């Protein structure tokens, strides 16, 4: 367009409006999301000292004006030496994997059913899936304490029915952790599966039926393969945050429920060893790179499909 370039701040603003609109969210995320990782990375090479802040400086200026750089790799060595960290990583990944699988098995039939419901019922059911997500996560995890503890609801009911005389110990076990993870992350699995399944072309299913396939064959040959992007997206939305989960193992897990989120928290708040906590976070990030890439690819695929 043949505008005359305007002078002054207003003109600059008009010409640079587009850049400014991009720059505001971009730099906010750069400063408060991406750069912090660089800071964590830097401090993971520092030494824990008793000071405020409790870590050593990487760069020091010597008297002759030479910058000295002191990198402490010991923090990472420490993670390898102490079996606590390796078993915490391993058990976090195991717990995240198993609970993602259980969540998928619970969520799939629900998403399938909702996607096949008539529009009115579909909207009500979707709202019911989203509703718990809006109420406090912390309080919903807390609710399970009352249900699972030794004199809690489940044990009271079982003993009243005469099924058992001794209460089951469920609190402070891995079982409680699994139940609460599946419970809190169920909506994250149902929604992407639903978005995928609702787009399923019904004529494919009809064709399969017409050609004589029974409903199970149709499901395994058509519905399931076509829903793989939804399965991947949902699974990653559950798996990634669960690996670093803190609240659930802290409230429901026992002392031997090892999860890396809890280890990081204790390292930071109890031991006040910030460099080791940073190293723990960096290793966790590295472990999560592949799942995050998977998620991005699945989401990009579904965006392109939708467009």
């Amino acid at each position, binding site marked *: 367009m043949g505008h005359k370039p305007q002078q002054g701040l207003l003109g600059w603003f008009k010409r640079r409006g587009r850049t400014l*609109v*991009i720059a*505001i*969210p*971009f730099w*906010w*995320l*750069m400063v*408060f*999301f991406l750069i*912090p990782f660089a*800071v*964590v990375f830097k*401090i993971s090479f520092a030494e824990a000292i008793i000071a405020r*802040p409790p870590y050593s400086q990487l760069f020091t200026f010597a008297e002759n004006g030479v910058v000295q750089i002191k990198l402490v790799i010991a923090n990472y060595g420490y993670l390898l030496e102490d079996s606590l960290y390796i078993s915490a990583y391993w058990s976090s990944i195991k717990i995240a994997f198993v609970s993602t699988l259980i969540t998928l098995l*619970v*969520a799939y*039939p*629900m998403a*399938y059913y909702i996607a096949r419901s008539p529009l009115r019922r579909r*909207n009500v*059911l*979707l*709202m*019911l*899936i*989203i509703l*718990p997500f*809006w*109420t*406090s996560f*912390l*309080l919903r995890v*807390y*609710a*399970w304490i*009352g*249900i699972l503890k030794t*004199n*809690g*609801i489940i044990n*009271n009911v079982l003993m009243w029915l005469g099924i058992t005389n001794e209460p089951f110990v469920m609190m402070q076990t891995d079982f409680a952790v699994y139940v609460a993870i599946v419970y809190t992350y*169920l909506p994250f699995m149902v929604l992407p599966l*639903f978005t995928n399944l609702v787009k399923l072309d019904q004529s494919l299913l009809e064709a399969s039926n017409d050609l004589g396939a029974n*409903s199970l064959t149709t499901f395994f040959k058509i519905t399931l393969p076509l829903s793989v992007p939804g399965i991947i997206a949902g699974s990653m*939305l559950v798996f990634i*945050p669960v690996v670093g989960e*803190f*609240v659930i193992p802290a*409230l429901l897990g026992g002392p031997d429920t090892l999860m890396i989120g809890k280890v*990081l928290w204790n390292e*930071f708040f109890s031991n006040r060893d910030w460099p080791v*906590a*940073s190293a723990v*976070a960096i290793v*966790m990030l590295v472990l*999560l790179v592949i799942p995050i890439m998977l998620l991005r690819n699945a*989401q990009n695929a579904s*965006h392109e499909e*939708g467009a």
Partner: protein
Amino acid sequence: MRKSFSFSSVATVLGFAFLYAPIVSLIIFSFNESKLVTVWAGFSTKWYVKLFQDPQILGAAWISLKIAFISASLAIILGTLAAYVLVRFRRFLGKNLLSGMITAPLVMPDVIIGLSLLLLFISMESLFGWPAGRGLTTIIIAHTTFCMAYVAVVVQSRLGDMDESLEEAALDLGAKPVRVFFDITLPVISPALVSGWLLSFTLSLDDLVIASFVSGPGASTLPMVIFSKVRLGVSPDINALATIIIVIVALGVLVAATKMKPEKGY
């Protein structure tokens, strides 16, 4: 066809029972006379009375509401800008990076976000002297950052559904891009802005882990107070608090659902 349909309907009923049983149990036992949360000893509202006489909980609730209000409002602006830029601007330097940075906070474990932001704030303080100490401001920055990611997702899908020819027509008729945004785009995406704001508000109100890292003395949020209480076991006044939150949310969602009928899906 019939068989798999009936299996999925049974599974759905069980799934919803699983989702709602804990919430129902919280509500029922908030009216329990006994201090032993799970042994029924008659109807009572004394835990509600006790809750409203607890200055620690009331103070923390006020702090949390302030933080949630400011964070949600900032997140709406930043998240909408990010979504608009990603959906409407064809190509620009750093587009991939921006789209990566806007989705990553959705899945990034809270402990990592909390730790990294705290270390950033401390480094910034020693370099520039800002932010001086930690408290409300640092929590608001942290919450705005992860809430804007949720806003961006909600707004992005709405912008994607929107008929772009409306905006193009206005531009062709000579309207300035800023004017087109405020007169056409904004009204169309306003339902997404409302739900994005509400979602950010509840997410901020709910966050324990990130706030624990970036908070300072004198800025204990409601989840931090709740966590320190329930760590020692169940306490009936927390059930009462949970019931109040659930009722408010349920009413809010019902009002929202009747006010603006979703056209397709959600």
